[in-house]
């Protein structure tokens, strides 16, 4: 059982190591999007401070979503997904392994780079801490929900942008509470506790439900 989980996880990480750029690109995309705004909006500190949390979270949403497009697509195109569906292992587990690998490769790096964003937007230290925590709790939810969309749009032409259309609205709660936490957290860490608790609750719910939906979606899409 866990052997299978590990071997799929290991495979995906190994593939990422082979093409190191994939991990890097999500990260760099995030940084670029974040850096574009001051160019479009202007560089007044007061404005930037208000903008910071929202921009960082929208950028996280977008980069998570972009990376999701390839979550199952590569496996679908070369036929390995078909083979995964034909193993005698529970598909939910395989799906979860793939989502886990995806988060490790694209969500976790965002958490680690968050302080950089904080600096770019002149956020306070406590806001930066809250931002890291909210990303840590929120990005797995993005991966989990997004995986459903990725499975549904598998193999469709124009999949990337269709995926965006399907899942960005579903990301809204995470965005609202994630960005909300950071905004509130600018004053004091404690203020954000409620927000973070809510994000944690989302995470638990998503962990319990999303893999099943995703497995069902995969079965539908492979036909």
């Amino acid at each position, binding site marked *: 059982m866990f052997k299978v989980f590990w071997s799929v996880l290991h495979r995906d990480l190994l593939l990422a190591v082979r093409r190191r750029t994939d991990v890097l690109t999500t990260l760099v995309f995030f940084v670029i999007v974040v850096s574009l705004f001051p160019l479009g909006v202007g560089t007044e500190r007061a404005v930037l401070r208000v903008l910071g949390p929202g921009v960082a979270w929208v950028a996280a949403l977008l980069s998570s979503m972009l990376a999701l497009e390839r979550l199952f697509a590569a496996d679908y195109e070369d036929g390995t997904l078909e083979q995964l569906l034909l193993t005698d292992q529970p598909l939910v587990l395989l799906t979860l392994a793939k989502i886990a690998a995806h988060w490790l490769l694209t969500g976790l790096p965002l958490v680690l780079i968050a302080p950089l964003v904080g600096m770019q937007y002149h956020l306070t230290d406590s806001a930066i801490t809250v931002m890291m925590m909210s990303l840590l709790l929120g990005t797995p939810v993005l991966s989990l*929900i997004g995986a459903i969309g990725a499975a549904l749009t598998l193999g469709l032409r124009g999949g990337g942008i*269709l995926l965006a259309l*399907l899942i960005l*609205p579903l990301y*809204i709660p995470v965005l609202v509470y994630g960005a*909300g936490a950071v905004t509130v957290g600018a004053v004091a860490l404690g203020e954000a506790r409620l927000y973070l608790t809510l994000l944690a609750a989302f995470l638990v719910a998503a962990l319990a*439900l999303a893999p099943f*939906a995703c497995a069902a979606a995969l079965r539908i*899409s492979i*036909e």
Partner: protein
Amino acid sequence: MTKPWSRFAAPASFYPLTGRLIPVFWVLAAAFILIALYWGFFETPDQLGGSNAQKGYYRIIFIHVGAAWMSMWLYAMLVAWAAVGLVFKTRLSFMMANAIAPTGAIFTFLALWTGAIWGRPSWGTYWDWDPRLTSELILFFLYIGYIALHSAIDDNRRADRAASLLAIVGLVMVPVIFWSINCPDPNQCAALHQRSGLRKVDGNILFAMLTMTLGFWMYSFATTLMRVRSMILTREAETAWVQDLVRAPERG
């Protein structure tokens, strides 16, 4: 899926049944809407006084409220049919879900449009990020997502099931989304119902509004059923009963 009644019998008997129902719905829709229009324009006061002072433009209410309600009701019905389809694997329910979507999207758009137009004289802006407005916008995106996913997949069977799964996921997420928009600050969720829908309004206004909504309901039934009929024809083109049906007008 293998049960015969769910595969052929249902569409085959459903088709002629709807053929008889649709005209009834059309007539009812036209009647209700006309009555509502007449009542709305001629039997109601020219402006609202008092606390919610509104000039002539308040007449938008008759379509605005109906459209907004329909948009939500139709989404609920869509999800219900999708769920039935996934659980019982009946083709007709998928078709129903799929047939509701465009009408739902139209009403959502109308709620947004009429609301925006009303907002201009009333609030001085076409758009504001008020929770209710934002929710309606998100609902519009959800409709579009459903339609886009369905039409992006060529294989009807896959399209039905994929889009239905999306609708179910929506069912779980929609309350969370709407609640998060309504209540962006979890410390102060009391402000949820800042504008209660119907306060003390003139009975005539209420009558016109409700009649219009009823007309919209009838209209939705009619369009949905018509769309289902088209779908049945295209999807079951090979079956004997469709061929008979097609042959019938040729003979006559």
